[in-house]
């Protein structure tokens, strides 16, 4: 065994091969956090459809007129007719478009399904006639499904009717 001076001994220690940091705890942490965050990313893919009730009358109105928006000068209403209404009035389910100065237009359902293609075309036509109009009222019957209501509101928004008024055809409780 050779003998070294104190300074040489220190040098020898410094020259030893540096140890790799222990990455296993960090890996474990990452393997826990990343799947959790990835699950949350899938969650954030949910879309949102907003109704603004902050201005004007607010709330859900019943029968004629809309809830959730300001005053309407040119009224356009979409009535989503349910099965109950169809049975009571001896007609088929569908949608009725009511516009001031025009006859009510019925869009009958096809094989029991609402005809959104015709509704979209009708809304496009109304949009071409009334370029500045942003208000539209959706009147929904109690037995109409939530999915159908969302699709109708969605088409209104797609066609530039940003102020959608939600209306129901029932007696009020509150």
């Amino acid at each position, binding site marked *: 065994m050779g003998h070294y001076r104190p300074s040489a001994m220190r040098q020898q220690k410094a020259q030893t091969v540096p140890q*790799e940091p222990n*990455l296993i705890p*960090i*890996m474990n942490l*990452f393997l826990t*956090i*990343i799947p959790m*965050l*990835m699950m*949350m*990313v*899938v*969650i*954030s*893919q*949910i*879309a*949102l*459809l*907003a*109704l*603004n*009730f*902050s201005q004007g009358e*607010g*709330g*859900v109105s019943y029968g004629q007129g809309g*809830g*959730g928006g300001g005053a309407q000068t040119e009224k356009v209403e979409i009535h*989503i007719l349910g099965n109950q209404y169809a049975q009571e009035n001896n007609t088929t389910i569908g949608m009725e478009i009511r516009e001031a100065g025009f006859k009510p237009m019925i869009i009958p359902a*096809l*094989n029991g*399904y609402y*005809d*959104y*293609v015709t509704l*979209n075309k009708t809304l496009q036509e109304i949009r071409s006639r009334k370029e500045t109009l942003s208000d539209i009222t959706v009147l*929904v*019957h*109690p*037995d*109409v*499904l*939530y*999915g*159908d*209501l*969302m*699709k109708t*509101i*969605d*088409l209104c*928004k*797609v066609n530039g009717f940003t102020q959608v008024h*939600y209306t*129901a055809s*029932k007696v*009020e*409780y*509150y």
Partner: protein
Amino acid sequence: MQILDKLTSSNKSERRVRKKFEEVKGLSITSLLDELTIILVFLVKNISTEVVKISAEPKITYPHTITNDKLLEKAGTTPIKIFPDRVVVGAEALEYGSPAELATDAKKRQDLLTYLQMEANDIIQHQKAETCLLVQADYSIPCDYITEIVRAATAAGYSYIYFATLEDADWLKKYSAGLAE
């Protein structure tokens, strides 16, 4: 002498074996760690705290929409989940009852109104934010129940009501194709 020979030969063989094992190096996971760090930063950046409240429920079939409105940045959100068989209210996921009770039970409706008023007041007074109700309902829920919730929320003072859907830019095309078939 023979013993010495044996010793030297055994030592030599031992050295050879050692050399063999010394050549094997540990698996380098540095590059993997780099990738994981990049993913982690990306995920953290893309996730807001609001997402926790908008957790998707696998038991709810969401309707598809083209529109995707942004949630207000400064908003206090109260989630309400309507499953086909039960209603869950608030961030604490309080069991409310069945959706049918919304239309039939006046006391239940009053309870919902009271709860929403309490939540709305809390948002306005403590969070100083806009009041938002987030409705997550199943496609097959009759609108009667949705109307009751919207009405209770507006009566309680909620300014915005958001409906959770799944974004699908082609749903109309698909629907049209389905009808044609």
